[in-house]
């Protein structure tokens, strides 16, 4: 039996890489819209509340990792969700690295930090003392609830629920912890 090798020796077109190249990443970052940039700054600000670092530090680290290629950008993933994910993962990574004590090893602030965290949570909740439904949603968010679970918790229809979430977001954004 003769096995044809025709076609095996021909060069097939290279499949597109699974991740963007650095040039593509740089181009994608350059082409972010003002809305995208505003969203990313807002997201970084949310994560940087009550942390030792500034929101710009967080965003810079995220962009640096992406641009340096240490954080691969899967092809086909849109810029804003991807960069938000990077910011988010770094924020959590840094949070885990920050112990409940001062970075110099001194533990004099340990209890104070823990107390502060509880106070900050109470501050956020107190923002919505005038709106029990929003307060319930915020509590749920803080406990990690998401999506339909939160809407069910609120008892609101989709439109009212989204309006309520916008209100929550704006109040939290304006809160300086």
């Amino acid at each position: 039996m003769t096995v044809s090798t025709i076609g095996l020796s021909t060069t097939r077109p290279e499949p597109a890489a699974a991740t963007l190249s650095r040039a593509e990443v740089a181009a994608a970052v350059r082409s972010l819209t003002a809305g995208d940039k505003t969203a990313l700054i807002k997201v970084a600000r949310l994560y940087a509340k009550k942390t030792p670092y500034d929101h710009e530090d967080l965003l810079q680290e995220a962009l640096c990792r992406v641009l340096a290629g240490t954080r691969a950008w899967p092809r086909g993933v849109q810029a804003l969700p991807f960069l938000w994910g990077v910011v988010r993962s770094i924020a959590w990574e840094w949070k885990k690295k920050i112990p409940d004590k001062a970075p110099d090893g001194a533990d004099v602030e340990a209890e104070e930090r823990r107390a502060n965290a509880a106070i900050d949570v109470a501050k956020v909740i107190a923002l919505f003392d005038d709106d029990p439904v929003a307060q319930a949603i915020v509590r749920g968010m803080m406990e990690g609830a998401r999506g339909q679970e939160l809407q069910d918790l609120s008892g609101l229809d989709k439109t009212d629920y989204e309006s309520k979430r916008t209100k929550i977001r704006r109040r939290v954004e304006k809160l300086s912890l």
Partner: protein
Amino acid sequence: MEPDPNPVSSRDALHNLADALGEDVVAAPPERLLAEAAEDDGDAHAFAAAFDRVSARAVRQSVARRMAGHVRAFASSFGLASWKPAMAATAALAVLVVAGDLYWHVRPSGISDTVVPATREASLARDAPAARGPTTLSEKKSAAGGTPASPPTGLSYAPSPAATEAPQARTGDIGAATAPAPAAPAAGGAQPFAANRARAAKPATESQKTMPSRAVVTAAAPPAAEPPAGQRAAKDPSFGWPLRGRVVAGFGSPSRGAPNKGIDLAAPPGTDVLAADDGIVVHVGRTRRGGNLVLVRHRHDFVTAYGRADKPTVKLGDHVRRGQVIAKSGRGGEGGEPQLHFEIRKGATPVDPAQFLPPG
């Protein structure tokens, strides 16, 4: 719905909240976000401009990281995959960094190059060669050659005999710069910040304007007198007062049911808080009771803490010089009196600042 006084116990609560609200931000229409930015900052494109600044920094940083990666790859391509050569290369790099840092600290751009007003002589007395040994390159050269270093222009101190007789003072260890030396007189007896006030009263000379590093910092720092012999190790640094103010609570005095781990200094809100010595900022953050807390790590594992501060002017990782303004004093304090809480820690252990501060 019944309010719950402590409904969320998770220490991740704020990050969970940011996760949830981040989803909303990403899903929000761009025009709405821009309108919100205009509402918050008065300019719809303010956030975008901030992003561009951050992005530019990130590009530079990413280039540096890529270069570091190339260096590692280059080293491994030459058979440096084993740990020994890699460690040797790392050690060589570390030596370069340390040497550069040393040069930065002892480079002859400080006192010796600066015209110092006469009113600062007292505050500079402790930095006279007799007390600190050769620190600038010119001084080192002179010491090595057996001839005393010439006093810098404008300085009128007279080198004590010890300066020429004991050139064995360290040449590279910055930490010993303030080590007590028997021949070092606590001359002058000037009050803290006298030099600072004198500087404010006189316009800076041209050389001060162009070379603000060591000399200006020294002028801002209060004069330090040597502590009693034997109270601290020879290599322990001395520190300057973070501000001029009355000590309202001493070290070990009762404070909130526990011994005070530092000292509390009364100061009007907005008073400059100065770094007690050269160091690196290792923490800047708010505290529940103390306004902002700034921690600066110094030589020999010393850390100074500045509590109840307001408006920090430094950020994590900044190198600060002695006398550099790092914050403003805040309004918080015991009994409503504005105070700065100041600690000196050896490692994690608070020590009595009086051992290290000049008489105030």
